[in-house]
């Protein structure tokens, strides 16, 4: 997404250029971006990368240790049903990224619309939408997700929709506060003065100016959605059990943690590193697009 800065720097660069340069100078940010790129490639090319069928059971080779830690030809060992942990990890990344990105996008769209409307129109609409946000925030989202999944049954899309519907509040609040200050700026009055309609002002003049904070929150939201999906899968309420996900792998592994540590440790590590990388990327995007952050 185009990082957009409203910094009116005097050098003859577009705002996107300035932000991109700042992003490249952030060393940890670039490490995180590269890590994420590798993750995305892994997910996309999973069938080519995984050495085994992630669902093929082989009870003769159950609980085999990683190849570099014992006598086995499985890179990261096998689980209690003899399934290859590395292959399951690779395929699990697909679910994690799909759920994370889709849920964040859904939440982002809802939150942006709510924030734009509440901020621009103000008054009673603002009050109603923001109280709705308060209610949503006061309700533990994982509990809501649990209730919905328990009620409607589990499924990939149900998980995505539930996580999307519970994540919109942070977008809405940030967008609203940005819009409240943006709408008093002269270029919005100017747009009204030339006869632009309200919805067009929102779409063409306000939305582009809140893309940077939206992108920042979206990255952080992707990480939290991935963790939330894993938590649901860990509890057996995520995606159907035959699909490998990091959360269900963790759940499978916890019984064997004392003897076969590799079943749970590797999905846990993947989960931790991915959400860390996404968070660092989010911070880097914020720093690169925020003119108030000091730049060396």
């Amino acid at each position, binding site marked *: 997404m185009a990082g957009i800065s409203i910094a009116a720097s005097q050098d003859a660069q577009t705002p996107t250029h300035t932000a991109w340069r700042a992003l490249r100078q952030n060393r940890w940010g670039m490490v995180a971006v590269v890590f994420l790129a590798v993750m995305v490639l892994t997910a996309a090319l999973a069938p080519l990368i995984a050495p085994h069928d992630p669902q093929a059971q082989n009870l003769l080779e159950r609980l085999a240790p990683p190849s570099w830690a014992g006598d086995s030809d499985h890179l990261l060992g096998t689980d209690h049903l003899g399934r290859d942990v590395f292959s399951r990890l690779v395929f699990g990344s697909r679910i994690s990224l799909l759920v994370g990105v889709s849920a964040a996008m859904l939440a982002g769209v809802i939150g942006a619309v709510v924030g734009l409307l509440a901020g621009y129109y103000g008054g009673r609409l603002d009050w109603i939408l923001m109280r709705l946000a308060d209610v949503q925030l006061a309700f533990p989202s994982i509990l809501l997700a649990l209730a919905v999944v328990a009620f409607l049954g589990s499924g990939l899309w149900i998980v995505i929709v539930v996580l999307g519907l519970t994540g919109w509040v942070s977008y809405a609040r940030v967008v609203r506060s940005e819009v409240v200050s943006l709408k008093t700026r*002269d270029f919005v009055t100017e*747009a009204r003065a030339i006869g632009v309609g309200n919805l067009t002002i929102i779409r063409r003049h306000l939305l582009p100016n809140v893309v940077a904070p939206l992108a920042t929150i979206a990255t952080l939201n992707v990480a939290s959605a991935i963790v939330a999906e894993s938590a649901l899968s860990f509890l057996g309420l995520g995606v159907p059990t035959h699909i490998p996900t990091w959360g269900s792998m963790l759940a499978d592994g916890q019984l064997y943690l004392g003897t076969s540590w590799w079943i749970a440790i590797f999905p846990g590590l993947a989960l931790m590193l991915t959400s860390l990388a996404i968070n660092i990327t989010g911070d880097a995007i914020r720093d690169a697009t925020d003119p108030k952050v000091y730049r060396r």
Partner: protein
Amino acid sequence: MTTVLSIEKLSVDFELGTETVHAVRDVSLDLAEGETLAIVGESGSGKTATALSILQLNPVPPAVYRSGTIRFGAHDLLALPEARLRAIRGNDIAMIFQDPMTSLNPLKKVGRQIGETLQLHRDVSRRDTRSAVVEALAQAGVPRPDERAEQYPHELSGGLRQRAMIAMALVTRPKVLIADEPTTALDVTVQAQILELLVQLQDRHGMAIVLITHDLGVVADVADRIAVMRSGEIVEEQPCEPLFAAPQHEYTRSLLAATPRLAGASEGA
């Protein structure tokens, strides 16, 4: 001369919490075709609130249009529904604002923003829009207009941005131009150029101008008539020369006295 815009007994309040500010009180003003009417007054005198009322651009809330009519052609602008009003904004009546630094959307190319006005009100092709934008920029005295149209606002100097704003306001050839402190944010030398440009464009297109300013020096050069405002009321309204030569109201006299440059100007007038 025929009257194009007529404000009658306009009152506008701002309701700020428990307090009500009477920003505009019973203001009546007429604007003739092709003339320049200046509204002068100190900060908070209601001159901007009056100007913004014409197109109903005061933020609602807190603004409340209490009473009065604003006649433009056959319409009372205060009674028009929003959709009809939008067809007049930018098309028949255009505005330029004080601060050219913030009046342009920082994320859009200058040319596209000017073209937006035209596309809203006219059924024009992309190519015609483009050539009209370049022509408007050229008329507003922007050098190399075709290149400037492709630039972002932050790449232009303050004076050029105000010229771009003028191009944006005039691209539809409005009958009335409302200029709210158009030179306040600019250097003195650039101020003079912008005023001269406005006078030139008025001669060419024959539009009427409502010029809002606190700077009597600005007014002396360009205005036909002057209305002096204080605390939301018009205290004095006269043609330019008599007002400078023989101000009737005490407040006008103190305004004139507060402007050193004008001591010479009023003697010359």
